[in-house]
């Protein structure tokens, strides 16, 4: 999505990183290192806002601790429109618009419906299965957002340079997965296995083999149908 990562999300990510630090401190490891992941599109330009998950193949590590997140509805759009959360986390869906919304998902990882509402009438929704959950509004067809629910201990999103650094990884073998809403098979993702073996910082460049879909058209007045 072309929207830059909003402040809500970055504060969430900071909170998540803190959680990871706490989590890593409890893992018995000979040494810890950071993993810097650089993701490029097929044309070599940075892939911004990609969701990265780092799952431990050996040793096995538990998922990150569940978090409480917020996906708001502002000016007929979900904010943020991409969010990554650990399995077991909750998301509340306030509606800050004057018009009513009707949020739904028919994704197998989490099916739910929030009947027509304004304000914040419903308790948060729990996401207890890993997978990509596509959100929509049954009143406004153009509203679209994705929740990536992960059981990986480490996760984040690439910045404007297409980078994200996973800090304090114990030595071991990890599977790094890239997901982006504009990947051609958005149900699938791109994965690589990487070894962390005592080096202070491991660099992992990744480049997509296929082009992304065109980004959704922005700036059309709300009074038009799509």
């Amino acid at each position, binding site marked *: 999505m072309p929207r830059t990562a909003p402040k809500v999300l970055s504060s969430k990510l900071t909170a998540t990183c803190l959680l990871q630090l706490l989590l890593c401190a409890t893992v018995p490891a000979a040494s810890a290192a950071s993993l810097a992941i650089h993701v490029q599109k097929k044309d070599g330009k940075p892939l911004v806002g990609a969701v990265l998950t780092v799952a431990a193949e050996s040793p096995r590590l538990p998922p990150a601790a569940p978090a409480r997140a917020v996906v708001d509805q502002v000016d007929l759009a979900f904010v943020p429109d991409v969010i990554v959360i650990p399995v077991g986390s909750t998301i509340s869906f306030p509606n800050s618009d004057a*018009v*009513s919304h009707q949020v739904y998902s028919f994704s197998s990882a989490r099916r739910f419906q929030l*009947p027509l509402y*304004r*304000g914040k009438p419903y308790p948060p929704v729990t996401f207890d299965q890993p997978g990509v959950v596509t959100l929509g509004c049954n009143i406004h067809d153009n509203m679209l957002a994705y929740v990536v629910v992960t059981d990986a201990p480490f996760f984040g999103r690439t910045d404007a340079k297409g980078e994200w650094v996973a800090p304090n990884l114990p030595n071991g073998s990890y599977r790094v997965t890239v997901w982006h809403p504009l990947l051609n098979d958005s149900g699938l993702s791109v994965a690589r296995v990487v070894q962390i073996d005592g080096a202070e910082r491991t660099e992992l460049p990744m480049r997509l083999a296929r082009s992304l879909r*065109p*980004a959704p058209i922005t*700036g059309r*007045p709300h*009074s038009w149908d799509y």
Partner: protein
Amino acid sequence: MRVARVRAMLVLLATTSSAHATDWELSLDARAVESDGRQSFLDRGQGKLRYDDSDDGLHLGRFRAAVNQPLGEVFAAHVEASSWGDEDKNPIDLTEAYLEYRPYPRAGLRSRVRLGAFYPPMSLENRAVGWETPYTITPSAISSWIGEEIRTIGLEGQVDWLGTRTGHVFDLQLTGALFGWNDPAGTMIAQHGFAFSDRQTTLFGRAGEPRSDQFAKNELFHEIDNRVGYYVGAQGRYLDRLVLNGLHYDNRADPMAYKASIRDFAWETKFDALALRAETGNGWTVIAQWLSGATYIAPGGHWLEWEFESRSALLAKRHGPHMLAARYDDFDVQSDFGGEDGHAVTVCYSFEQDERWRFALEWIRVTSDVDARQFLPMPEPPLATETKVELSVRYTLKGTL
């Protein structure tokens, strides 16, 4: 405890009622017009434009009031009323009024049902609220005709396969409808051929003025033969970039049937329509439309046929609130009494400042060869070139009750 429970219930009630609040919209569209058009088709003439050479000056283009009322969880009522600043039967009247059923999508499929009076899903140009085109002031010949003569008064069902929500690049939609109360559709295209006008005929109003007392009263939304009409349509989409829409329409009217109270026949009208819209991420839009059909009446068993066809191509560039659009239309009507042949060029600059103000300046030139011009009470040469420059200033207010 009890107080808390009562308070919680009150809060819940308030939330529920506010979620089902009425969304309303009012807009006023004022026009300044300079036209050299022949006497308008809306005023007993064979001119192709809404405003003719007697209309220079200021006009009420449209006053529009719309209401959307959710009813329960998955139903909503939608009502559109308009006033066109001319001498119609009712100073303000309905253009659309329907009940919509929108259940939640399941397993990638979404269904929708509409019951009432509304437009068939065929114009990729008239995508703005109130069935208006955002690209120009005056819609294409095809959309102008639909707005003048066609309305579904009946039941429509739609099924969408939401491919883009399930990891694919395509969406598909199928539509089918059964309708009545549109048997006079065809009267206008036989009477004056295609035209260029954003004036939509209202459900209880008239399409312009009757040309003579001998002919139709121009009330288009009547049931004459008690036969049900239908249309079927399909739409395919590639992401949000490309839309292809097809529709087959047949009102299945009995061309022998006649209704004395409106002095009109049941016109058996059928047509096929195709439309394509392509948009790019940097604001370019291309819309191509095609419509081809025929209408029949059989007074006293003597069959009369009018065949009509129109094509249009539009190119638009949007840059923030600015938009520049150009469109070419081509149209013809053939019958045993002669017909018409013509084309039009429209150029429009519009500025949508915010949700309240929109300004548009349009230039349209229609060149047409219309046989019926020779048979007007004041005969005119069949060939005419009509030009109109129009400024539209629209102010919109909306809110929730």
